[in-house]
């Protein structure tokens, strides 16, 4: 055990910090759930890529820096510290990216990853269907082989970023006779293919963060399939593991929120209940614990370990921590907390807390509802019967 950064790691941190200070936009970008904001964020992805910061863990040949996971964590810490914009391409770089690394052919990696790192292709995900939310094995949308193409018919929903994205990846039933988790394949679909209709779904805050996708005889080349035909479920489970796992919810995000919460509390300590102190300390501790846990996981993975069921533990922990931190913040803000948009009181950044709160409510739901995660922990870690 050695809990000190190496000189190389310190130098990397310094490099990222300096670069971010020079490049992070001074003005907050518009929401990437608007057409204009989406392109602003794509622009930021290009800026990142210009500094070879698109996805530092990828090999240099694919647009990265070959950074290890500790360096990745350092990068993320500096990213959030700098208040850099959200990653509009998170579905790509954090979910599809690792999946491609593991299951993609050399051709597929070269075709998709550099464009992903550059922000040229922004990705949406196509998991859920109206009848298949937490129960993903109930997917019915079909992709039927027709020569060198699959012909897709059906409907996806809750497709994050799909309103404006260029591509989507998802799970489709390639064997029409199959049921549950058999007979599905993992396919990448350009969203400008004829036959695709997108219907934006407004979120709680009114912005279209996700969309329904309707597929009507949509033809996709066979080489867009990832892995073998029928292997889709296993690949999707790996992707879902990434989603719940290490990269998508890097601890720095929650540590930054905890820090803002401490500062908010310090400004309002005198008027709030004494019990808030303990809530704020708990938030700080939990954000730290999440970071420490991630450093342990990263150290284990670097030493050759595999990620396991801890992904489910992580998912529950960060999502409930995030919600709880935002609830505490709104409670501190009191009657001012209802402000969805306002110039008032910018010191407290009320609107950011409120929107963050609304977003945090999705945490325990998406990427496998926490109820499902608790089932997984009980059945796979504690060996309780199904």
């Amino acid at each position, binding site marked *: 055990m050695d809990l000190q950064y190496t000189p190389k790691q310190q130098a990397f941190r310094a490099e990222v910090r300096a670069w971010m200070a020079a490049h992070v936009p001074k003005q907050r970008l518009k929401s990437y759930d608007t057409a204009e904001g989406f392109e602003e964020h794509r622009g930021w992805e290009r800026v990142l890529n210009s500094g070879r910061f698109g996805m530092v863990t990828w090999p240099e040949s694919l647009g990265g820096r070959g950074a290890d996971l500790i360096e990745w964590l350092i990068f993320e810490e500096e990213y959030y510290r700098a208040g850099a914009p959200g990653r509009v391409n998170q579905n790509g770089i954090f979910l599809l990216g690792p999946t491609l690394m593991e299951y993609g052919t050399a051709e597929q990696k070269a075709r998709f990853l550099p464009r992903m790192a550059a922000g040229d292709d922004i990705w949406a995900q196509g998991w859920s269907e109206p009848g298949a939310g937490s129960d993903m094995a109930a997917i019915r949308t079909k992709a039927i082989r027709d020569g060198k193409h699959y012909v897709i018919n059906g409907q996806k929903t809750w497709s994050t970023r799909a309103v404006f994205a260029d591509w989507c990846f998802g799970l489709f039933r390639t064997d029409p006779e199959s049921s549950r988790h058999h007979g599905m394949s993992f396919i990448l679909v350009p969203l400008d293919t004829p036959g695709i209709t997108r219907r934006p779904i407004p*979120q709680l805050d009114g912005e279209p963060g996700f969309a329904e996708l309707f597929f009507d005889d949509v033809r996709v080349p066979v080489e867009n399939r990832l892995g073998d035909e029928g292997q889709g479920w296993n690949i999707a489970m790996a992707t879902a593991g990434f989603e719940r796992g290490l990269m998508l919810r890097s601890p720095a995000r929650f540590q930054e929120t905890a820090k803002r919460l401490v500062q908010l509390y310090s400004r309002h300590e005198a008027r709030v*209940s004494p019990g808030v102190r303990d809530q704020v300390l708990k938030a700080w501790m939990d954000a730290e614990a999440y970071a420490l846990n991630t450093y342990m996981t990263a150290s284990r993975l670097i030493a050759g370990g595999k990620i396991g069921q801890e992904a489910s533990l992580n998912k529950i922990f960060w999502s409930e921590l995030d919600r709880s931190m935002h609830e505490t913040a709104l409670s501190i*803000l009191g009657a001012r907390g209802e402000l969805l948009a306002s110039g008032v009181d910018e010191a407290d950044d009320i609107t950011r807390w409120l929107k963050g709160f609304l977003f945090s409510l999705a945490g325990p739901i998406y990427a496998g509802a926490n109820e499902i995660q608790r089932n997984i922990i009980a059945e796979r870690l504690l060996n309780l019967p199904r």
Partner: protein
Amino acid sequence: MKFAFTEDQLLFRDTVRDFLAAECGPAQVREAAAGEGRSPARWAKLVEMGLTGLTVPEDQGGLGLSLVDQVLIAEEAGRAALPEPLVDQIGIAAPLLSAFADRADVAEILEGVAAGTVKIAAGHPLDPFVADAGEADYLLLGREESLHLVPRDRVTLTAETSVDPLRRIAAVDWTAGNDTLLSSDPAMLDRMLDLGGLAAAAQGLGLAQTMVDLAAEYARTRQQFGKAIGSFQAVKHQLATVQVAIEFARAPVYKAAFTLGPRDISHARVAVIDAAASAARTAIQVFGAMGYTYEVDLHFFMKRAWALAGVWGDRHYHLARLSRMVLSDDAALGADGTFADK
């Protein structure tokens, strides 16, 4: 000792519930949010039912009923997420103004309130914004220790955007004058806060129950893994836990409506804030991704509950007040103090 509503009170409550189910269902709330926000037609019907005069003295054309009668109506308004400011009129403005009904101008205003032609917004200095100030004829406002009745044209409003698309809030800039002064008894300002707190608590009860009901309804029909999600214990137990919180917030609200004691009002307020927050947290979890959309009705109720959690003294204010009363050396603790706070 009889801790129960009369048959008449419950019957009137049921009438209002049926009326709101017909005239202010979730579809109509959605319609209001997409349009003007307020329905003059529905307001006219509320007036016709006598609701706007519920707590206005009979001499001023009202029904002269008490806050015990009112609390059940406020609960129903919450249950329906009624967009119109009925509760502020009959739960705050009318009861406050009734104490000054011997003033001719006030009496006339009260008549207008009962008739539904005069609207009054109320704002306590603790709160940064006033709801429905824009279309009010008068504002009941506090300054230092005095209560003022201020004509609309004497204030400047800066509209703000609430998370609740149906709440219209504004910061109010105004100058107090002798001609606006209603009372310099500081107890009147406290009374306004207490009435506001009671009104928010009663609405919160109704909102919380609707959130649970909507989630239960969804859970009965939504299928996953081959069965209705409501058959999963995880869903059952989360909703049951919220229902327990709601049930045990109910009696404190009703008691507060009877005693109007500050200890009781703060208790009711905190209990409902917590129950409603828990109802929202749980209901959206049961709805899953559906609950995160604007297309499902749930969010109207969540947002109203969140907004009402902060006004008329937030959780911290009421806990602090309760603390002064419960943790003081001479507090009447134990069972024989329960009905001593009148």
